[in-house]
């Protein structure tokens, strides 16, 4: 039924689907048509490319060859004929399909600013979305000293961080009151801004841009408050918009994205959509994890591996990790009612009984109400902020900022809906205060050590055994070791054995031998 599969788009979603199909046995012909002239690359690494740490070759993703997969980069699709089940390319070629997958991704939003024509951007004004954008940014950055990044979301901060790492003086201009407002609360946003400042990235908050003036020597950004900022380069990171032009023209149902069901089918059973261009359950994409999960479902359905597979969106986790920045944000965190530290029930929120204590909600009258806890820890001077929301012992939202050793655990607990540790501090601070983390067990003072304590694990020698040996006449470490074999295995207890012998030699012999 799906002998000829055509994938439109060779970005991270389209390439992933091709790989998933390639990995599964079966007789089929897969054609991937990518508008960009490159082989598939990892968009997530573009900020590393901006930072100059890798070159273009290093961002390439696995290339597919043979086994019925035909990848054509630089071939744009111009139209879909659903009745004839064909697509037409920019070169006029017609390709037939049995199943069509749209993975057309999204386009960078060019904000409606005076002086900006989306179709004719000046050289010094570049969106940050594609490899070609990166090339243009890097070309413009050559010889540049200052860069303005319009947009303090994840992408904008990554671009700013990358260019700052190149030695540019980077300024982020953001229209709302705190950075990454979709993922962070104001307190976290403030800590993040401080962290960025230490890394050479300045932020201008609540700064609405109104116009751009670009010339041969520089670019000026005018702000609503009458100020203006000058720089050598302006990077636009104002969000993305699903690329739905083909789908719309083909008469498919399109809202913000191409509307799909849990099989990733559009309203035409022969057409699916995945990745940033798809809209499932009212939500459009933007992250890699859901796009790849969708690619997997489509591959399983199209190859017949599992005809009952259905897409379930993975929990959304935003992760920003670059030298000096460590940020993870996930799930629902109601806006704090009052100050930055206080967590609280969302205004008009559901049955949640919010508290800001570390512990079960006190005075919860409603027996069926979910038991909500909110935990926060903030040390802004050191760039650390943590806020967790726990509902019925499950993590339902979190912001971690700064180096928190628990970040992997927190993400897994959230991802898997697993119960949180009884000692919540382990999540907030990264370790329990007296937990197992942090190296070898300390050696207790010989005098205080209980007799039954095992000193040498390899040879099961207790403190009592060593004392007994000393009583029996052994008077040096060597003699004790020979008699008890303590320390002859891994050797890690040698110091402890020596310490006990020293203690035995030092204390009143009567006391020990009595």
């Amino acid at each position, binding site marked *: 039924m799906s002998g000829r599969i055509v994938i439109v788009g060779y970005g991270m979603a389209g390439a992933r689907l091709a790989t998933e199909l390639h990995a599964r046995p079966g007789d089929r012909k897969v054609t991937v048509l990518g508008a960009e002239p490159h082989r598939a690359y990892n968009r997530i690494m573009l900020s590393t490319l901006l930072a100059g*740490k890798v070159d273009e070759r290093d961002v390439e993703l696995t290339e597919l060859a043979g086994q019925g997969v035909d990848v054509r980069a630089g071939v744009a699709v111009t139209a879909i004929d659903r009745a004839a089940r064909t697509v037409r390319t920019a070169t006029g070629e017609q390709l037939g399909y049995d199943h069509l997958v749209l993975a057309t991704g999204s386009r960078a939003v060019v904000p409606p600013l005076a002086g900006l024509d989306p179709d004719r951007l000046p050289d010094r004004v570049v969106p940050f979305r594609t490899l070609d954008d990166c090339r243009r940014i890097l070309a413009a950055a050559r010889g540049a000293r200052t860069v303005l990044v319009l947009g303090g979301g994840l992408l904008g901060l990554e671009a700013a961080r990358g260019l700052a790492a190149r030695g540019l003086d980077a300024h982020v201009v953001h229209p709302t009151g705190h950075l990454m407002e979709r993922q962070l609360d104001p307190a976290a946003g403030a800590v993040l801004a401080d962290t960025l400042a230490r890394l050479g990235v300045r932020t201008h908050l609540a700064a609405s841009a109104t116009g751009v003036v670009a010339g041969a020597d520089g670019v000026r950004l005018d702000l609503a408050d009458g100020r203006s900022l000058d720089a050598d380069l302006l990077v636009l990171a104002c969000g993305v918009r699903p690329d739905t032009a083909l789908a719309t023209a083909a008469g498919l149902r399109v809202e913000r994205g191409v509307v799909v069901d849990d099989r990733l089918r559009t309203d035409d059973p022969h057409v699916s959509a995945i990745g940033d261009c798809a809209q499932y359950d009212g939500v459009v994409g933007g992250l890699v994890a859901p796009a790849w999960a969708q690619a997997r479902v489509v591959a399983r359905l199209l190859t017949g591996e599992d005809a009952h597979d259905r897409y379930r969106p993975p929990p959304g986790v935003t992760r920003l990790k670059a030298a000096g920045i460590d940020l993870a944000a996930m799930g629902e965190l109601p806006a704090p009612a009052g100050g930055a530290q206080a967590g609280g029930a969302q205004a008009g929120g559901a049955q949640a009984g919010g508290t800001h204590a570390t512990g079960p909600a006190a005075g919860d009258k409603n027996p069926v109400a979910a038991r909500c806890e909110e935990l926060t820890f903030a040390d802004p001077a050191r760039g650390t902020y943590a806020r967790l929301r726990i509902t019925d012992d499950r993590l339902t939202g979190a912001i971690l900022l700064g180096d*928190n050793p628990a970040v*992997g655990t927190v993400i897994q607990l959230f991802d898997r809906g697993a119960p949180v540790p009884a000692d919540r501090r382990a999540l907030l601070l990264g370790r329990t205060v007296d937990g*197992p983390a942090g*190296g070898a067990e300390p050696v207790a003072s010989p005098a205080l050590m209980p007799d039954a304590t095992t000193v040498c694990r390899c040879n*099961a020698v207790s403190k009592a055994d060593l004392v007994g040996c000393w009583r029996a006449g052994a008077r040096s470490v060597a003699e004790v070791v020979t008699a008890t074999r303590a320390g002859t295995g891994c050797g890690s207890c040698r110091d402890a054995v020596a310490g006990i012998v020293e203690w035995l030699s030092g204390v009143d012999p009567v006391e020990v031998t009595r």
Partner: protein
Amino acid sequence: MLLRERDGQVEVLPRDFPTNRGGLCQKGWTAAELLDHPERLTTPLLRGPDGRLAPATWAEAYARIVAGIRDTQAAHGPDAVAVFGGGGLTNEKAYALGRFARVALRTRMIDYNGRFCMSSAAAAGMRAFGIDRGLPFPLADLGHADTLLLVGANPAETMPPLARYLTELRERGGQLIVVDPRATATARLADLHLQPLPGTDLAVANALLHIALTEGWVDREYVAARTEGFDAVRRIAAGWWPARAERLSGVPVADLEATARALATARNAVILTARGAEQHAKGVDTVTAFVNLALALGLPGRPGSGYGCLTGQGNGQGGREHGQKADQLPGYRRIDDPAARAHVAAIWGVHPDELPGPGVSAYELLDALGTPTGPRTLLVFGSNPVVSAPRAARIERRLRDLDLLVVTDFLLSETAAIADVVLPTAQWAEEDGTMTNLEGRVLRRRALREPPPDVRTDLRVLADLTAAVDAGAPSYRFLSSKGPLHPPSAAADGAQPPGAAADGAQPPDAAADGTEHGGARQDGADARVVFAELRRASAGGPADYAGVTWERIDAADGVFWPCPDEDGPDTPRLFTERFATPTGRARFHPVEHRPAAEEVCAEYPLYLTTGRVLAQYQSGTQTRRVGALRRAAPEPFVELHPDLAARLGVGDGEELRVTSRRGELRAPARITATIRPDTLFAPFHWGGTGRVNSVTNDALDPVSRMPEFKVCAVRVERVTP
């Protein structure tokens, strides 16, 4: 170990040797206790009509075995008789066992328990380096490492003397990094402990390579000059940005970065894998991912740096080189390689076409026993699959379905207990031979005393059985050590199998009772005779022992293979100039993470991983019978995190039932914060209701056929009394 006899008692003393440097753990110190153990088997046992094992003579036992072999093969063909060996057997025994199977029994059905141990690292090493030697450098090199990454290795419990290198490494300011889902004794020694979800090591390795790429730590010069295939691996690594691996494994990005930095910026760095990384249905790919990382950083072949794997059994290295593996001939030759077949067939005095082809892997062999198309008679040497095989309850049923099960052992293991014939065999202090340690260093084992009167060595048993089933054939007797060891170049004379002219025509009786070995017989009961033929058979192969003699081993504290000439050097350090591939370059292989064969679900919501404890060894047949070890680790247990215990309402020591799709385990709870809350651990040393292998997954690696011992999905509940 050194042995000393005093007042009729054998004493064990540590020997100052690079692997243990004067150290021993309790297992070593107490090993002599088994020599005169009251439960030691001192006579053959035969299962009688009443269903019980009863003492019998050797003649009766042999008669039963030979009749069984003949009947089975007459009715069902040669492959209906199978042989199962062990990684604890000496090189000579491993060699003689493979030879016995292929030549006397003419069966292709032979494999061994090392398949459950070393096969994944072996396959990964072969495909990357063209050769499989656990450590391609002397162990003492660890003394120069500034960063050591241990992946799924717990030497502080499984190989305590080696752990001295770890303490020393840290004392001189080096970094020890341990990857393990449990905070083991080894992990607690580490500067950095990565605690991934079981089954996600491969993603961790790919992410480490990703970081090396983005930080500019890849040794581009080395990659260009000494390797091939990097581009494909680079593109895989590009897809493993650290946050992706973090989400999958739970290992924080910061820790991944610190690990990559420690490896890349050290003067000398070593990466070692062990069973934790290898015993997976993706074990070969996981090891390959770490090999890829080592190659990208330019480590292999650089003195003081490199990649290696830690062996698990006494002769884990040598046991996999000399032909007890289904696809192998002696000298690490491939049984499907026509030149290798011709070489070995000539030495064995048979036509190459008479040699059987590749058999099936250990688990597949065991799983076919007693089925309509599978073997109906099985001979087991030095192994206890009733305890050590995955999905063990099923394997136990298969063993019981056999027409004839013969087990050679010195104690009544769980497998021996269900056998039809049990042959009592000599122990290590009662036999000569050689072992090859994890460094590829061939070592001697020396007989200190005679075995008890009615006990025979494994070699004696094999020689007797060969004589009984194959007495008329030329292969009945072993070749003498006379004549050139190395065959003339096969290319020079394609028609004639190499060595055939020199050796093949030797009549069976020519060297009978020959005297060149102090009156030793040439029928293969003498380890020296077997070793002489092993040298010849391995000559020219990857694991070339041709230049190794017992005298040389004694004189030099061991000889590192390959050692092709008696007068030439041995090879302590491989890869300094070239790799053992046709091009001389190491090969990168692109490997992708894939989920465990069995992931957790609503019905089986927890991961189970398995391993060893300090005071026990392997299936426990030996160590469970030593008083001090039994006291130190008396019974099986299930480790679980305090949070999980609290949710289950389980107290320390309470009996738990752990259930998977394959079976259940019952053992007391051991509550410890050293394990992840989503994971259970149980050691595999026990049989009966405490047998964790009743639960483990028999999913196999597609290349090595290694079962997935290290991760499966289970549920746990308290057993209500």
